[in-house]
């Protein structure tokens, strides 16, 4: 291993360690991280441990308020709300993370290609992004879900395809500025191969900003899925995402407000945590953008 590669490795390790130290000085982000961990754990474990099922109606226990039998009460079909809300968290988190991954992959590939290629390719690709920015996607997604049925996969793909535009723009800008930086020139002058250069120098510098925006995409995606579910265009009954539960709760809120407030609290908790975590990561991973 030559000196340059060792220098590269040391730099990268130091960078991540420093980021972690900066994140640790950011209490809201740490609290958010802990809360998210807790919600994920609950969402995974509760449906396994609970004696109740999310789908089976129980006609003897309709609209039970929160109590010892059912910690969060039951809904209009006597189903345990705790289990249903935890299933809702599972679905919302799954959709949020999977669709964010789709959009990050598309966005990074598109942006990096445009930024790296430059010239005519760059401006053509960015013109396409400009045009897509003006397309009213939410109406189109609504039409899509209405027309092709409410398939889970479609919701992923639709949301992922909608939310990559911002990431593409950011990654392109970052790639453009990286291309002309001194340390890239220095690395090239030291004779590093282009693969090593990309892995050691370009990717770590892109990775921070990609992680930040991925974290910030997750809550918007979760909200978007909840929005579709609220309009009745999300997952099929008896399965319910948090949006479906909120829509159901809103219908019965006059007599049974807990049916609305409990899923709303969990949705807010998840979305807020991702937002705070994203803010913390922005400070930790992108020190140039000081507050």
């Amino acid at each position, binding site marked *: 291993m030559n000196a340059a590669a060792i220098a590269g490795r040391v730099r990268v390790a130091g960078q991540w360690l420093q980021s972690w130290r900066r994140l640790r000085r950011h209490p809201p982000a740490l609290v958010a991280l802990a809360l998210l961990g807790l919600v994920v754990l609950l969402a995974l474990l509760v449906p396994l441990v609970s004696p109740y099922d999310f789908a089976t109606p129980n006609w003897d226990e309709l609209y039970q308020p929160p109590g010892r039998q059912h910690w969060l009460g039951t809904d209009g079909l006597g189903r345990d709300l705790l289990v249903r809300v935890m299933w809702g968290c599972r679905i919302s988190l799954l959709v949020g993370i999977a669709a964010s991954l789709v959009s990050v992959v598309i966005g990074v590939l598109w942006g990096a290609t445009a930024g790296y290629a430059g010239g005519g390719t760059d401006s053509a690709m960015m013109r396409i992004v400009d045009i897509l920015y003006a397309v009213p996607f939410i109406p189109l997604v609504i039409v899509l879900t209405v027309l092709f049925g409410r398939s889970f996969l479609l919701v992923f793909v639709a949301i992922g395809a909608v939310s990559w535009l911002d990431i593409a723009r950011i990654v392109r800008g970052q790639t453009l500025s990286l291309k002309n930086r001194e340390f890239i020139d220095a690395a090239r002058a030291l004779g590093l191969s282009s693969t090593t250069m990309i892995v050691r120098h370009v990717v770590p510098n892109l990775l921070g900003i990609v992680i930040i925006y991925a974290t910030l995409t997750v809550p918007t995606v979760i909200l978007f899925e909840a*929005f579709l579910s609220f309009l009745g265009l999300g997952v099929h009954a008896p399965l319910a995402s948090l949006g479906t539960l909120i829509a159901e*709760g809103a219908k019965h809120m006059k007599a049974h407000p807990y049916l609305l407030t409990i899923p709303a609290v969990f949705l807010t908790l998840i979305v807020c945590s991702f937002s705070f975590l994203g803010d913390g990561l922005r400070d930790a991973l992108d020190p140039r953008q000081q507050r």
Partner: protein
Amino acid sequence: MLKFLAGRLALAVPTMLVIATLAFGLLHATPGGPFDTAKRMPPEIQRSIEAKYHLDEPVWRQYLRYLGDLAHGDFGPSFQYRNTSVNELIRSGLPVDAVIGSLALLAAMLVGGCVGTVAALRRNRWLDHGPMFLAVLGISIPVFVTGPLLILVFAVQLHWLPSGDWRWGEIRYLLLPVTALALPYVAYVARVARGAAIEVFASPFILTARAKGLPTRTVVLRHALRPVLLPLVSFLGPAFASVLTGSIVIESVFGLPGIGKYFLTGAINRDYTLVVGITVLYGALIIAFNLLADLCYAWLDPRVRLQS
């Protein structure tokens, strides 16, 4: 300036074409026509209805005919609401959305701008941390949660305001939907304004103004206000678009007669012309407002050169 406008309009035309083609193609690619009802119509009646709406022609003829009509500002007849044109439906629904949306954005700019500026002036103190924490909450709580909650508190429990419905000229009917729609934008504007204000307050010309001994009020209003407004203006263009789509939810929560309601029922009933028409309208409004925001930006900041 003129060159910039021409360039933007030149981009707007293909964009509109893409939107119209996407919407038209999607609706025609799917099985089930608007007149495939459960009870079968006599074939000759079905044929004559389809002939009336030109559904018997090949798709490319329908597409060209539709684009031709669009170019004249004619969205065609609605399939679902017989004897009503899409233009008429839009004309009856859009004013509702325009009133709610513009009031919500106005509230967002005023309240959010003030909160953000104050937070920047009191940086890292409780008047900064408190509102900014609330702002993240405000961005994270979706409209379809705040809407029902507002109804629950102010209509069901306190009986102060009506829980929905719409009457022209009555402010009572506006308060809850506008509040619900405005909250996330208030929060967002407050965050953006805080960031901009912190940057502006740190810049040399503010230091000069302070060094001259000007009172804080004059420094903020006379010198800092304009540069703080700048990032908010560029936010207004996209915000307008999301206010429009956000109002789909507001309309269904509060039972308002806006175009979002027509859009949803149209999509479910395969009302081709209505859905394509509203989608195209959304697109046109987004383009128009982004352009307007860019023009305002250049007007507020003389350093900006408009380039196409």
